């Protein structure tokens, strides 16, 4: 029996087969050569450019744009990748409207920044599609480093360490590398298997061996890694999902948004991914938007994103909020889940409306729901970790933890935004500190 948008429950195949490819195509198709030249020409080559300051990895943006404008995109790519080895993915997933493009003087002047993100992708794609890896390893140092977690922080750290001449072993609990790039980002942001292609390209540096299916605390321990390596970098991300503090939150159909996103990314056939008719996503960050938009793109009839505060407090950028609205997601703010209602499986979910001080207004909202996604934040999980600062690993300087010889970066480490680009910067900087320590 075939399904459509009106079929109740959580079912696959709500759309015609061809609709899936169309809905999940590249959000921003790559600029063609002429578009890139026109976009590059808009850059003013600012002195001490604000966009560089705004970039967590300090990419020399005016320089790489000038390199594109003068017909040398591979040189541009090297400028980018020398600061940010995952510049290709960051070009796709960075909230540029809150970073480089927000700082662009043309944003101030005209409300239309230079298309920095898209230009970055133009350059990095140009280089990577030729299979070129522009970096070489230094002479072997004889030192070995363990990197735990093959996400943006771990891979960035591993690449830099390998480039500096160290031997690196990367351990990851999952069967594939990439971390959130592979499992945690909306499909339309990284099409055609780019996350794996980027990992393959990154590993061309050499000197990095990958150990998949090795979870910290299960298959390897921090203690054993410290004994077998000269340094350890933890880039383990946030493995747990915050619970929904609402009555009946254990009913069937109440799921983690991160799992839904991961399943979508790993699906061979999107038509086989089940989705509810009435989907409610609870949360206000990028994960919430990625889940809500993709639920809609899978053919859900109604998708509502519910956030407890105002839109100005949402972690998802204005661009992401607008994208959700454009795709047909209804955004409800100032509502806190109160009760999940249903007989075994969720049927409805009730919210309390709250004011800016999070006090109930006495008004409530009930939404029909056969699928509810929790997207209210993730937490660090694991035993025997270095000292924490709140709920994350405490660090000083360039990722140094409380344990000698152990560094940390990315989402698992305290401080910094939970962004891919921030993770890359932290991994890189920790690698430089590890290198300095090992070669002192």
């Amino acid at each position, binding site marked *: 029996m075939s399904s459509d948008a009106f079929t109740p429950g959580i079912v696959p195949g709500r759309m015609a087969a061809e609709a899936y490819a169309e809905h999940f195509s590249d959000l921003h198709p790559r600029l063609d050569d*002429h578009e890139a*030249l*026109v976009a590059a*020409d808009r850059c*003013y*080559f*600012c*002195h*001490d*450019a*604000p966009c560089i300051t705004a970039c967590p990895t300090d990419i020399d943006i005016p320089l790489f744009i000038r390199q594109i404008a003068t017909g040398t995109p591979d040189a541009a790519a090297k400028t980018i990748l020398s600061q940010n080895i995952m510049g290709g993915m960051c070009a796709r997933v960075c909230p540029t409207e809150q970073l480089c493009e927000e700082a662009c*003087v*043309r944003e*101030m*002047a005209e409300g239309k920044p230079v298309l920095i993100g898209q230009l970055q992708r133009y350059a990095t794609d140009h280089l990577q599609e030729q299979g070129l890896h522009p970096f070489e390893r230094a002479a072997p140092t004889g030192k070995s480093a363990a990197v735990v977690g093959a996400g943006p922080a771990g891979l960035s750290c591993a690449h830099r360490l390998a480039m500096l001449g160290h031997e690196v072993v990367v351990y990851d609990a999952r069967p594939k590398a990439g971390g959130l790039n592979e499992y945690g980002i909306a499909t339309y942001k990284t099409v055609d298997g780019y996350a794996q292609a980027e990992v393959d390209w990154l590993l061309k540096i050499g000197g990095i061996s990958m150990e998949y299916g090795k979870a910290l605390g299960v298959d390897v321990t921090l203690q054993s890694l410290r004994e077998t390596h000269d340094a350890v970098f933890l880039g383990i991300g946030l493995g747990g999902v915050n619970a929904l503090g609402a009555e009946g939150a254990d009913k069937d159909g109440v799921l983690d948004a991160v799992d839904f996103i991961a399943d979508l990314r790993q699906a061979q056939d999107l038509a086989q991914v089940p989705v509810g008719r009435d989907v409610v996503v609870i949360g206000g960050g990028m994960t919430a938007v990625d889940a809500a938009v993709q639920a809609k793109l899978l053919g859900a009839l109604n998708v509502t994103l519910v956030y407890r505060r105002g839109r100005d407090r949402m972690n998802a950028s204005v661009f992401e909020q607008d994208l959700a609205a454009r795709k047909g997601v209804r955004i409800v703010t100032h509502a806190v889940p109160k009760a999940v209602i249903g007989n075994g499986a969720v049927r409805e979910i009730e919210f309390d409306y709250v004011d800016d001080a999070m006090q109930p207004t006495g008004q409530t909202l009930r939404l029909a729901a056969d699928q509810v996604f929790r997207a209210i934040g993730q937490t660090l999980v694991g035993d025997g970790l270095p000292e924490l600062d709140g709920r994350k690993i405490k660090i000083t300087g360039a990722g140094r933890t409380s344990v000698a010889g152990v560094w940390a970066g990315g989402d698992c480490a305290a401080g910094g935004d939970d962004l891919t680009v921030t993770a890359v910067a932290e991994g890189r900087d920790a690698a430089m500190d590890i290198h300095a320590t090992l070669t002192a």
Partner: protein
Amino acid sequence: MADLTSEFVGIKSPNPFWLASAPPTDKEYNVRRAFDAGWGGVVWKTLGLDPHIVNVNGPRYGAVWGADRRLLGLNNIELITDRPLQTNLDEIKVVKRDYPDRAMIVSLMVPCEEEPWKFILPLVEDTGADGVELNFGCPHGMSERGMGSAVGQVPEYIEMVTRWVKANTRMPVIVKLTPNITDIRKPAEAALKGGADAVSLINTINSITSVDLDLFAPEPTIDGKGAHGGYCGPAVKPIALNMVAEIARTPELSKLPISGIGGITTWRDAAEFMALGAGNVQVCTAAMTYGFKIVQEMMSGLSEYMDSKGLTSVDQIVGRAVPNVTDWQHLNLNYVAKAKINQELCISCGRCFAACEDTSHQAIAMSDDRTFTVIDEECVACNLCVNVCPVEECITMEAMTPGTVDPRTGKVVEAEYANWTTHPNNPAAKAAE
């Protein structure tokens, strides 16, 4: 709508916009389209003697582009007409008959002997054309055969040929000058001595637009080789303006009418040429880039400008800027200005800072919050910051009021005009009288 009618050396046209001798005026079909579009006149692409010349069969044009492939400069290696003389004459005649109110000038280039001129001039007269233009400017191909700029670079030849032409026709004679010389006044003077009714300038500038770095050959490349071409388009306008002004402000040449040519793309360009002394203008590259329709903008723009200035005839523009073109030595050294940055308009790109700090006078300060301000103690008013600023009117040059102290020099700004000729640092200075 201002009256745009123009009279140049007795030749009337409904507006001062003529198409220059070039591919757009190569044949009847194009010229009819040009007149239908509104052009006031044409200079028919240069006629020569039969057997007609041939052109290359590869690319004839090379280009320099700005942003978004905006054509800034064009060069060409095309020669004069590559059609039989009689074909051109027949077409000129019917077009002039059908468009009697438009100016029809015929460009000519024949060998540097009197006989060929005696031969061709009556044929042109017979078409009913209004005048002839002597092509002493073409810098490629024809010059290798002793014509075009090979004549234009030798004032004696210019005078001699012009005299022959004047002796053999009743038509007004315009001498088209090449810019590939050191002093444009010399060929203009020669044309005047030979009896020319007017000069037109500039013809194209010797140029190589670019080099193919794979072939290591100049562009445009014909089977691996390239020859220099003639450069035109917006990029050459400043050179042309100066040459027009040099002629216009020379007392002995000031009565010599000028048809201005060189990168004229808009009504404003045309008005600038006229203000520097051009009685009318000729256009080519702009038409080749955008088509004949641009003349509509030129007409509406010039008209609006004239109305806003209360001008009732295009002649009232001609030469108005000439008295203000002077020599450096006559510039007022007591005039002191300072750059001023409008903080409301500033977008904090810092280009003024980079330019001033790296390459000029370290006269712009940058604060931690990217506020850029001029340091009057250092500013020499060079204008570089104005030129590199991407925001129009954001940085301006403000004249200092006489009587105030210039913080750079510590001297009071004098109200009196004083130039280099009387400056104490000038070893040749004469005491002010």
